[in-house]
Structures are given as C-alpha cells and as structure tokens.
C-alpha cells in the first residue's frame, strides 16, 4: 500500500539504526506518546534494535486505556436500558468496568453495536426513530473532529434521538503532567502524529521551551519511529530542545483548521479524569451548552455513578513512563487481555496488552528489563 510499505523497508531501517548508534554517546529516556506508536514499536521489536543507551518508555496516549472506569460504568447503565441502541468503536467493548464489559451487556440482551464511524450512528438513529441511539464518544484530538461532526450533523439534520457519552482527552496536558511529576524520567518525546495532523504542533512549542525537552512529531510506521528516535537523540546530544516534525507528509504546523473549528464549535475544554492517573485540569472536552440536548450523561442522569480501580494494577505508573508492564506482579498472570485488571491491558494499544500480545510475558524479565 502506498505511503505504508515503503516505510517498512528493512534495509533503510538498518541504516537508521546504524545512524542512531553513531549519534548516541550516553543514556537517554524517550517516551512515545501515542498508543499506536507503542503498538508499532513492540510489534516490530524496534526497542530491541536500538542501542542500549536509548530507552523507550510508553506514554498515556491510548484513549481506550485512559477512559475512566466510572465512564465505562455509565456506558453500561445506559446500554442496559431497553429503549437504547448503544454504539461504540469496537475496542471499547472489551474494556472492563466495575461489573463486566460491554460484550457481557450485549450478551445479556442489550442492543450494543460496533460502528466504524460516528456518522454511522446518525443512520442508525434515522432508521430507528423509536429508539435512543447513544454513541460512546471517546478519543484524543484525532477523533474529536469525527465525534463533533456527528453532533453537529444531528442538530443540523434535526435528528433528536441521538446523543453522545463524551470522554474526550487531550495530549498536551498529559505531557505537561508527566514533565511536572517529581519522578519524571522522560527526556524527549516522540509526539503524536495523528493528533498533530488535526491540531498542528504550535501548542507543543511552549512545552518544549519551558521544560527544555525535545518533542519530535512522529508517524507510526517503523521508519517513521526510527527517524523520530534519531531526531530526538540528535537534539538531546546537541543540547537542543525544539519541536521538530518527522511526519511532515501528514502534519503541518497549523494542523487542520476546519477540523479545529468544528471541535471548538461543539466542545469546550474541561477537566477530565484519566484512568490510572486521576483528574488532570483542562485535559479534555465536554459538550458546549448549546448541545446539551445531545449529552447522554445529562439525558440518562448517570453523572452520579462513581467507581474505583482494582488496587493491584500499576497502570497509572506505566502510563506515566515510571514502570514497565513486566514490573507488575499480575502481568501475564492474573492480568491478561482476556481478563484485564486495568487500563493498559484493555486495549491492543495499551503498553501491557502490546507486551503480552507480542509474547513479552514469555521473555525472561532480566532480558526485557535490560533492554526496556
């Protein structure tokens, strides 16, 4: 496939790795922000190919993972209603709440449907006027243009039986939170390519400057990630801390302005709770007042449902780059993708699930530990 295959070229990857080895003179800790990047890194074993000085830690950018458990419980409460068709992206269905997951809710007879795009929900709503169609609107800034458009179009088309359960989060506040943590180890970031395709990367420039940390906006293919590592290491070795754009084929400094305009018409910035981390101020979106009639939390009065995480799970520390999946005593034992105990095991893009799916629970801990 064009713009995919050429970025998986083995020979070029080897050259990039050689160049990284030539550049690095001392240890550096880099964080890839996005769960999709984590998945690629573990899938292709890129972290094993890097010199031992370069340690990759895995960031909080998996929206499925960081959707708080009480939002999952609220989704279940809504989905169980007989008058509701509950729609979601497929990867949310297996995420455990306090009492099972959406698959179990569906198995018990509720109408839970997987959609490819939020616009599909509008067609379902038009075809089922006697039902209330609710979409679980989760995601980072990448998904916000799609989710906000569905609400905008519902209003424009006069579709009254559609609403959204919003749990939207934003990347920059989470990066800032990591950098402000007294235990922070991260010295450079591979920035989130597709988030920046939408938002551009201007908002990362003050972060790089203030915290003296290089941020290289990076794509998702193996060569993108290796070049992102090279650019970040090069900055660190040269004592620079700038925002650079590795993913220039898809990202511009200003991003997608029409998409940003739609996001700000429909959503406003709000405090958000992150699974495994807690509340981060001004770290997500909620619906603007003008769209309150499309707010599922308000319509179904689920705002008071609260919940707590299992105590054993260390996903909060994994999401902040403080621990690796195999540092957890439950990893690969009580906690697997089939029966996840917490955030980072629930989605294929979560660090724990990626490690498990690519067999790292079977690798000797000391080997993995030494190589990150």
């Amino acid at each position, binding site marked *: *496939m064009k713009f995919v295959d050429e*970025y998986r070229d083995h020979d070029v990857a080897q050259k990039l790795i050689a160049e990284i080895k030539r550049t690095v003179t001392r240890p550096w800790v880099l964080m890839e922000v996005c*769960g999709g990047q984590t998945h690629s890194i573990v899938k292709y074993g890129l972290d094993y190919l890097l010199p031992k000085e370069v340690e990759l830690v895995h960031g909080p950018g998996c929206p499925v993972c960081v959707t708080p458990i009480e939002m999952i419980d609220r989704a279940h409460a809504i989905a169980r209603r007989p008058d509701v068709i509950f729609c979601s992206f497929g*990867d949310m269905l297996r995420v455990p709440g306090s009492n099972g997951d959406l698959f179990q809710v569906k198995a018990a007879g509720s109408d839970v449907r997987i959609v490819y795009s939020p616009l599909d929900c509008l067609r379902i709503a038009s075809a089922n006027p006697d039902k209330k169609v609710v979409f679980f609107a989760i995601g980072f800034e990448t998904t916000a243009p799609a989710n906000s458009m569905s609400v905008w179009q519902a209003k424009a088309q006069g579709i009254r039986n559609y609403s959204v359960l919003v749990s939207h989060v934003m990347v920059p506040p989470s990066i800032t939170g990591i950098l402000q943590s007294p235990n922070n180890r991260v010295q450079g970031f591979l920035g989130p390519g*597709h988030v920046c*395709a939408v938002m551009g990367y201007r908002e990362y420039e003050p972060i790089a400057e203030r915290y003296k940390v290089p941020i290289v906006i990076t794509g998702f293919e193996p060569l993108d990630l290796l070049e992102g590592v090279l650019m970040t290491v090069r900055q660190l070795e040269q004592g620079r801390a700038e925002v650079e754009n590795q993913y*220039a084929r*898809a990202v511009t400094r200003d991003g*997608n302005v029409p998409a940003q305009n739609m996001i700000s018409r429909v959503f406003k910035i709000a405090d958000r709770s992150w699974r495994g981390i807690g509340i981060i101020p001004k770290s997500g979106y909620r619906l603007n007042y003008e769209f309150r009639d499309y707010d599922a939390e308000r319509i179904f009065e689920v705002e008071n449902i609260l919940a707590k995480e299992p105590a054993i799970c260390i996903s909060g520390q994994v999401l902040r780059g403080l621990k690796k999946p195999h540092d957890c005593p439950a990893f690969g034992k009580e906690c697997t993708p089939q029966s996840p105990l917490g955030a980072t095991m629930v989605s294929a893009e979560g660090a724990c699930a990626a490690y498990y799916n690519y067999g790292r629970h079977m690798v000797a801990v000391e080997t993995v530990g030494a190589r990150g």
Partner: protein
Amino acid sequence: MCLAIPGKIVEFHERSGVRMGKIDYGGITRDACLEYIPDAVIGDYVMVHVGFAISKVDEEEAARTYQILAELDQLQELDTPEPEIGPLAVTREAQRREEKT
C-alpha cells in the same frame, strides 16, 4: 485508536449535505467524510481516521523523506568530522534552505 490510514480519493458524493468521498486503500474502497479537506481533488491521498479524512498526504514531502532515509548510507561517506551535526540533519536543513531561496 488514533490510527489513520492513507488512501486515494477516487470519487466524490454528498450524503445529507455532507461532503463524502470513496477512498481506495490499495484495492479496498470505503466511504469517508471529506468535509475537513475542502481543497481535496480526485487522486489526492488523504489520511483517514474513523471515517474522516483528517489531513492530505503531501506526496512531495513523502518522497523527499523517503529519499533522505534511503540515501543515509551514501551520505555517511560525505560525513564531516564535526560530531555535532549528523548527515541527515545537514541534508534536511540544506534542503529547507534551498526551498526558501
């Protein structure tokens, strides 16, 4: 989750007043919303996420990046003794300077 796939626009149409298009992903076609790429034309490549095109793929930039990566080996021969700036950075900066002039 934030996965976006590059595909080629092969057709435009409208659904309920929304600008849509048929996107070809190396043989598989699927509809996507093109409202956010108002200047897109047939034949353009776009990055598609959950049924929405979120950015246009800059083909020149893609070709240039790949070319730079593929030529890493040859560039090493031209490497200067200065340890601070590697060949990739030199080439990219030089190219940008050239573009500006």
